[in-house]
């Protein structure tokens, strides 16, 4: 029922754009608020639909998935959470899929954050991953299979300092346990004991800093999930092989989920993503059609 109504709504929304085009061409463009309403419907209506669009996994996502899947059990992954709630719609699905994959493959995850909110987001993602039956079968334990070291202030200086020893920056985990008494951290001195660094980033400090310090100075292997805003700037590093793979934005999350075979929030929200792209493109086209018509009239 909701599905049908939503589809009808979308069709009406599309048709009404002709009116917007007309208004714009006659030089009486619709107000900002009307544009806002369109955006709200374009983003909201697909949430009531249950269509799953076909997802094509791009090479950069596949490369990251391959690198993660190749890690043998008990490999140590440093997961750096450098984002806050506003970026959660893009990065949280990635983080949840990541934890599911890590727990299923029996990898050890060490969580930390250069953003104060990062470790909280990680806790939420872990909680979500633990609901998965396959993960529950592996029964990952805090302290043994994963640990949350919490946030440390100092931005990129923290990574720099971690190069000589993690413990100097994180003397205790988020639950106040001293570094040395956490089983999963036994024998972990610095980046040379880490098999893979996974970074979820929404800005600075984030993936760029992890490349500059952890990779270029300390030789870490890095993969990252980024908000779409950040992703284009990360491509040169990707091309320069300073990192192994990249997930960009919500579509990156959907591809990641598909490649790992665990559909989640990223896949279900993708339809909304598609419809908002369409609406923005249509608005640009409408705006420019009007612009060129008036220019032609002036010139001619």
């Amino acid at each position, binding site marked *: 029922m909701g599905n049908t109504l939503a589809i009808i709504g979308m069709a009406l929304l599309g048709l009404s754009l002709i009116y917007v085009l007309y208004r714009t061409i006659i030089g009486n463009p619709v107000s900002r608020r009307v544009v806002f309403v369109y955006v709200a419907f374009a983003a909201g209506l697909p949430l009531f639909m249950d269509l799953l669009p076909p997802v094509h996994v791009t090479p950069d996502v596949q490369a990251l998935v391959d690198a993660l899947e190749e890690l*043998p059990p008990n490999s140590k992954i440093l997961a750096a959470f450098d984002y806050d709630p506003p970026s959660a719609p893009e990065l949280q699905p990635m983080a949840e899929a990541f934890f599911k994959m890590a727990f299923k493959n029996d990898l050890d995850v060490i969580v930390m954050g250069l953003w104060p909110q990062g470790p909280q987001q990680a806790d939420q993602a872990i909680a979500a991953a633990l609901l998965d039956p396959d993960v529950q079968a592996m029964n990952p334990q805090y302290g043994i299979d994963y640990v949350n070291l919490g946030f440390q202030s100092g931005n990129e200086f923290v990574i720099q300092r971690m190069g000589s020893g993690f413990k100097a920056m994180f003397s205790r985990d988020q639950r106040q346990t001293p570094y040395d008494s956490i089983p999963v951290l036994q024998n972990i001195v610095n*980046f040379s004991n880490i098999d893979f660094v996974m970074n979820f980033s929404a800005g600075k400090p984030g993936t760029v800093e992890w490349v500059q310090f952890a990779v*270029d100075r*300390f*030789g870490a292997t890095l993969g990252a999930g980024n908000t779409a*805003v*950040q992703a*284009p700037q990360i491509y040169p590093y990707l091309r320069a*092989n300073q990192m192994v793979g990249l997930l960009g934005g919500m579509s990156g999350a959907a591809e990641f989920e598909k490649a790992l075979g665990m559909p989640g929030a990223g896949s279900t929200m993708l339809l909304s993503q598609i419809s908002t792209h369409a609406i923005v493109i249509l608005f640009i086209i409408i705006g420019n059609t009007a612009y060129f018509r008036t220019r032609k009239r002036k010139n001619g």
Partner: protein
Amino acid sequence: MSRLSRLSISRKTFLTSLLSLLVFAAYSAPLLAQDSDISVTDSTSAELEGAPAAPTNVLAVDHKYDIGEAVDVSWDLSFDDTAGMRNVAGYIIYRSVAGSAEFDSIGAVFSLTSSFADIGLTRGETYQYSVSSYTLSGQVSEPIVSAEVTTEREWFDWDEVWVFILLVLIGGSVMYFIYHARKGKQMFLRKIAGLQAVEEAIGRATEMGRPILFIPGIHDMDDVQTIAGMTILAKVAKQVAEYESRIFVPTRASLAMTAARETVREAYMTAGRVDAYRADDIYYVTDEQFGYVAAVNGIMTRDKPATCFYLGAFFAESLILAETGNSIGAIQIAGTAQPAQLPFFVAACDYTLIGEELFAASAYLSGEAKQLGSLKGQDVGKVIAMAAVLIGAVLATLGSEEGMNIETFRGAFHGIWSVFGGGQ
């Protein structure tokens, strides 16, 4: 990852060794605990007769350019690890402190591995290493002993000498041009469109009797973009003081507020109008990005500044700022080195300083020798970069299939350096 630094490769090797050590320990600890002439219970397999061939050519060298706590051990693979009859499962590495004949096992690696990094040693101590090969059934070859090695602490990381040379070259040209500019030598700078509009924009605000808004980005003083923004702020504020206009500088970072106050006060002082300086117009809002943007939006809609400057590091707020600025009809001059935000500034602002133009603008406006000189120095760097890209790409196409990479780079520099006797 192969074209990353040599350092990273050796770390990787170390990591592999460590991993294999763990796996090996789990597998064969019970076997190793017994004497090496362990009695064989299962005699069906031919490989159990006698120990495997030992590795050869065991070398132990001090790990280069470290604090003196690591030794790299390497060897040639056992004959049985490659072509022989018995399957070598891996190698065991032993260490003794010089003078003592007692070798302790310190680690093991899988077959087909020919190096091991021993870390956590004492600086200045002399050590000796030996390596044996072993089979899965616990047959261990005779140990082959290396020469003695003493750990040393080296100060300079010679792996990075090429970085040093290029840095000196570019830094040197920066200093050279600054020196020349100071001596009053004229330096040509190409025109930057956004800059020519600054004075006019301030004049317009004065005529309209409306204030000027200056946002030095949302990063703190630890970002060079903020500092460039501040340099431009100094110039803008001086002009504002001369025109008896008013300028608002809301900041997102407390240090930036401190610096902005200093800068503006200094500018008013230079203009001889320190009495007109209002410290309260320059204030910290909040560290929260959107709390800050909302507050700035409020300022814009309330005070309707005639000219808005956005010069510094910007993120998501660029769009809201530029859009709001548009809606109040302000002249907008933006500049940032954040590539993700440049599209919005380009689209919605009257003038945009793209990336490095921000730093050039700072030089251009101040006319300062130091800034002009650095620009020239950077241009030298760009010539080097362009030449390197072009020549490198051509050489790579003509030469190897693998292409040039940083290792080739390093190798070349090392070669040159060792000719002059450096690096050892």
